[in-house]
């Protein structure tokens, strides 16, 4: 594979974390404009862990993932009982709060004669673990893809067990869910924690690829894109958000046929898809049809 293909694929994989994160909450019936916050939190936490505290890479990624999950659940705890739009705006407020706070967050230590660590709006440079370990872009793509596969496997397990069903019921009809004995708030908090963890993992991996991160990268636009990917790709399966990312980044951005007109084409495409399939391309009905066909 050439460098361009590798970087496109890595981009797709990294964005998929964010898209899956927003998708999990969509399944649980909540719209989040703010999953980029957990991406940022994961990126900063993992970066601090490996660059400032000199932890090994795996521990850093785990730390970023766990930190994202913990904050996700913690933020959901007071906000999840708000009605839909209020929750959505609360996620937006929180995400912007995180971004604005990172703009003034400074935490530097002297590592090998260089001040290392986040420095407010100037960003956080030299997250060099992957670079110093001599990991090639191709090898790093394998690592990122492996982590993404783990996330997909986790969701698949939940779909086999009761997890996804619990999320879907709570998302489709919270009153009915409560009447079936499910604690709606607890289920949604668990979903938010999971979503935070997935985004955190993506952020952690991103930080080590980019080696430089800054608060401005985690803007509202990033989060709203992530949300749109799930809605276009479809709410029926975890492959939906990945399909959304593939269409946008894979097809439109990389093929260069639409060079310059990507958003104009993509925007129109999305609007048309949603008129025909309001729950995305791989919606419940299509997934059901496909799985019935596969069973035969």
């Amino acid at each position, binding site marked *: 594979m050439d460098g361009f293909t590798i970087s496109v694929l890595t981009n797709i994989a990294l964005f998929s974390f964010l898209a899956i994160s927003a998708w999990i909450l969509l399944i649980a019936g909540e719209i989040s404009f703010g999953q980029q916050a957990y991406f940022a939190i994961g990126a900063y936490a993992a970066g601090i862990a490996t660059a400032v505290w000199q932890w090994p890479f795996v521990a850093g990624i785990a730390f970023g993932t766990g930190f994202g999950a913990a904050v996700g659940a913690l933020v959901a705890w007071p906000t999840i009982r708000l009605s839909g739009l209020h929750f959505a705006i609360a996620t937006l407020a929180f995400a912007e709060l995180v971004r604005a706070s990172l703009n003034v967050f400074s935490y530097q230590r002297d590592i090998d004669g260089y001040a290392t660590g986040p420095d407010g709006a100037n960003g956080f440079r030299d997250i060099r673990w992957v670079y110093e370990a001599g990991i090639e872009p191709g090898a790093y793509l394998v690592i990122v893809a492996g982590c993404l596969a783990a996330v997909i496997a986790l969701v698949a397990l939940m779909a086999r067990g009761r997890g996804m069903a619990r999320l879907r019921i709570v998302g489709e009809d919270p*009153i*009915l869910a*409560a009447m079936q004995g499910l604690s709606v708030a607890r289920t949604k908090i668990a979903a938010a924690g999971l979503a935070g963890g997935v985004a955190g993992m993506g952020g952690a991996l991103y930080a080590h690829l980019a080696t430089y991160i800054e608060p401005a990268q985690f803007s509202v636009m990033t989060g709203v894109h992530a949300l749109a990917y799930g809605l276009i790709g479809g709410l029926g399966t975890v492959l939906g958000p990945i399909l959304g990312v593939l269409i946008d980044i894979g097809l439109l951005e990389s093929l260069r046929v639409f060079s310059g007109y990507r958003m104009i084409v993509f925007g129109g495409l999305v609007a048309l898809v949603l008129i025909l399939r309001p729950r995305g391309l791989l919606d419940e009905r299509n997934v059901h049809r496909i799985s*019935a066909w596969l069973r035969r």
Partner: protein
Amino acid sequence: MAAALEITGLTRRFGGLTALDGIDLTVEPGESLGLIGPNGSGKTSVFNLLTGHLAADAGSIRLSGREIAGLPSARIVRLGVARTFQNLRVLKRLTVYENLRAARHAAAPALESLWQSRAARRAERDAVMALLALFGLEDRAHDTSDSLTLMELRELEIARVMAADPALVLLDEPAAGMTAAETDRIGETIATHLLPGRSAIVIEHKIRFLTALCPRLAVLNAGRKIADGPSSAVLDDAAVRDSYFGSGSC
């Protein structure tokens, strides 16, 4: 032995309107109580308060002697209460099978979110399919429930209540919108499969249907209980005839 359900002084206001005004109701273990009254008399509100969907302003609700007023819905339901809905509540985008499985999620251990053993999956499938067979719905198990007829949806709701295996059943107009033949069929299903061994409250406007299921009736009017007793006696009561049948709502 404590009553299956003992409601005393149950009161609920919506703004200036008192929807329920000091209601007392008792259901003995294994008994089915019919609840009637004009539209807006507070019947469904009783269910909403009972299941914790709305909070009571005053009064007590005891389930087998245990106070449940103020508990969250999920807790109450797990103590053995299940209900159906007047305007049907099914998960439209999920299959019939998944709808029935939903009734079993709460009781299962949290760990099964991630891992349900093969044996447990098989046992669950057998139980759900057996239940569907009772209603002749086996063929529809893997259809999404938005493709069901009204009759099938009502049956699905009743099957879902059975899947939860509650001690107290709350049925909200289970025969609404049905033809006479369908009403008879659903009544028979309820009588043979659902009610035996359980306590129940049934709300219904179709009196003949109701008296066939419930030997005792309670009547609500404007948030108050105006009669309670054996069905025949209640239906002869002058006040009941005046408030209910006089209004021509049936």
